[in-house]
């Protein structure tokens, strides 16, 4: 710790030496010195509890750290509260292994097309040394999801979002050859998945082959929000009709 760190950095500002810190997201290294590459508050993190690792110096995109966002599936009725929120920023790119929430836009025999709504912030802590791993805006997930699950908002803003594919063999880990896509996803479902590849020029590739991945929010044919009853079934609370989905573990 040679000099005191500034609380707020601007791009190009010198933050510290590579000898005393490791470069985290929002910084870059030039001549063994860490410089800020975005404007924002400077965050110093301890990577591991072991004292040998250097402190990670990063510039936050989100402002001061806050409590984790509430579970998205429980907040379907929070719509009116989110209208006064500040603008949403989709300023995080999906990277390999990042967990994303996406809306199904098309279901075909061999694949489902989804558009990525938000990139969740779980991989950032597992790979702290890669500055390309960016943090995301967890505070807005609720707003994004509740507006996306509303059928009135299914507008043509999809071309502004990143598109992704879930191939038939990536839907689940067991009985891959007996997957029927129509019984896994429907158009409009909100799906949690992880990125397995940046893909070709137009699509990322997602997988839902884990217990905690799959459909998190869905509407039945009569238009009611459904609740999960098993790993492959969701039920409409009004009509009681069950529908088949690849359901994510709800906790």
């Amino acid at each position, binding site marked *: 710790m040679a000099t005191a760190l500034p609380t707020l950095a601007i791009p*190009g500002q010198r933050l510290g030496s590579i000898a005393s810190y490791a470069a985290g997201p929002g910084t870059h290294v030039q001549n063994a010195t860490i410089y800020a590459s*975005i*404007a924002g508050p400077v965050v110093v993190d301890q990577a591991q509890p072991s004292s040998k690792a250097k402190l990670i110096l990063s510039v936050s995109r989100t402002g001061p750290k806050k409590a984790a966002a509430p579970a998205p599936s429980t907040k379907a009725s929070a719509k009116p509260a989110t209208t006064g929120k*500040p603008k949403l*920023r*989709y*300023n995080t790119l999906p990277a390999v292994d990042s967990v994303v929430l996406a809306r199904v836009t098309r279901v075909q025999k061999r694949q489902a097309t989804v558009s990525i709504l938000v990139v969740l912030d779980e991989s950032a802590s597992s790979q702290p040394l890669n500055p390309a791993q960016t943090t995301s805006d967890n505070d807005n997930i609720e707003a994004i999801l509740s507006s996306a699950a509303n059928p009135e908002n299914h507008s043509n803003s999809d071309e502004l979002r*990143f598109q992704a594919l879930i191939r038939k063999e990536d839907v689940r880990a067991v009985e891959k050859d007996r997957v029927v896509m129509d019984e896994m996803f429907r158009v409009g479902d909100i799906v949690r998945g992880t990125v397995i590849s940046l893909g070709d020029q137009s699509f990322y590739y997602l997988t839902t082959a884990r217990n905690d991945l799959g459909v998190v929010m869905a509407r039945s044919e009569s238009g009611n929000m459904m609740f999960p009853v098993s790993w492959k079934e969701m039920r409409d609370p009004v009509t009681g009709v069950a529908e088949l989905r690849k359901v994510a573990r709800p906790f």
Partner: protein
Amino acid sequence: MTDRRRINGPPSGTRPAVFASSLKSASSISTGRPRRQRQPDELRKIFLKTGLIPSASGSAYLEFEPSASLAAARSNPQSLIPPSSALKLACTVHGPKPLPRSASFSPNVVLTTHVKYAPFAARQRKGHIRDASERDLGVHLETALRGVIVAERWPKSGLDITITILEAEDDRWWGDAPDSHDAPWGMMNVLAGCITAASAAIADARIDCLDLVAGGVAAIVSDESAEGETSTPKLMLDTDPAEHKSILSACVVAYMPSRDEITELWLKGDHSKASLGTTDQSLNHESLIDGAVNAARGAHTVLAEAVKESAERFAGLSTGANTV
């Protein structure tokens, strides 16, 4: 095909008529040229604010202080024609967003820049389609920004930077007839403003940059003195082309102060005669570039304050949203 049913205006632009009665005397048209009242190394004041356009991921608005003559003319109008103009422009950054379907895979961010004059921005009316000079400015701006953005952090995505110029700098004083060594000098000031504003907007969009890049202009001018004869050429920073009879050469740079690097350099004009005539060694390329770099350093101080303000607002806004 021409429209024969309506009476159309002339195909090229028109200039407003100057009525003799609006001029105080016959000689005022020649003495009406605005005069530089700043020191040679003194810049105009810059107004720069970020985050004005809520739908964009980043935005900035830049304005140069009107020259003293323009301020005087506004409070006490002598003529309907403003003596000079001051730069005003808005910059928006959209992205990172997915590339269009037709684009091929790109491991880096794909940068596109658009510079457009508003139809009313200059004395000569601009069309709605971008003309050659606007496309030229866009290419210059793209070169300036390409060296600053850390492109490999945003794979498979595009970044659109759009600049609308609301009021452009004049290329010469409006009373001067276009002559042989006339060049679009105002474009260079516009480019410097575009670079500074785009840098603020990119920082506002939280796109990774190596540094805040600032634009600066310097020029070698040979002013006419009060008696009407041209004096020895001088190096001046942040020249307003309306204030000078003849600009021999001008230079605009995009400069990164913390790394001491130039990402864009544009020199125009011929100052070989100026350096031949005098023994002054300061009138060469290097001094011209150094002058432009100094002007960019000045603009960088404003830019740093504007970006800091943007960061403070963003940090404060995040905590505010959390408590709701």
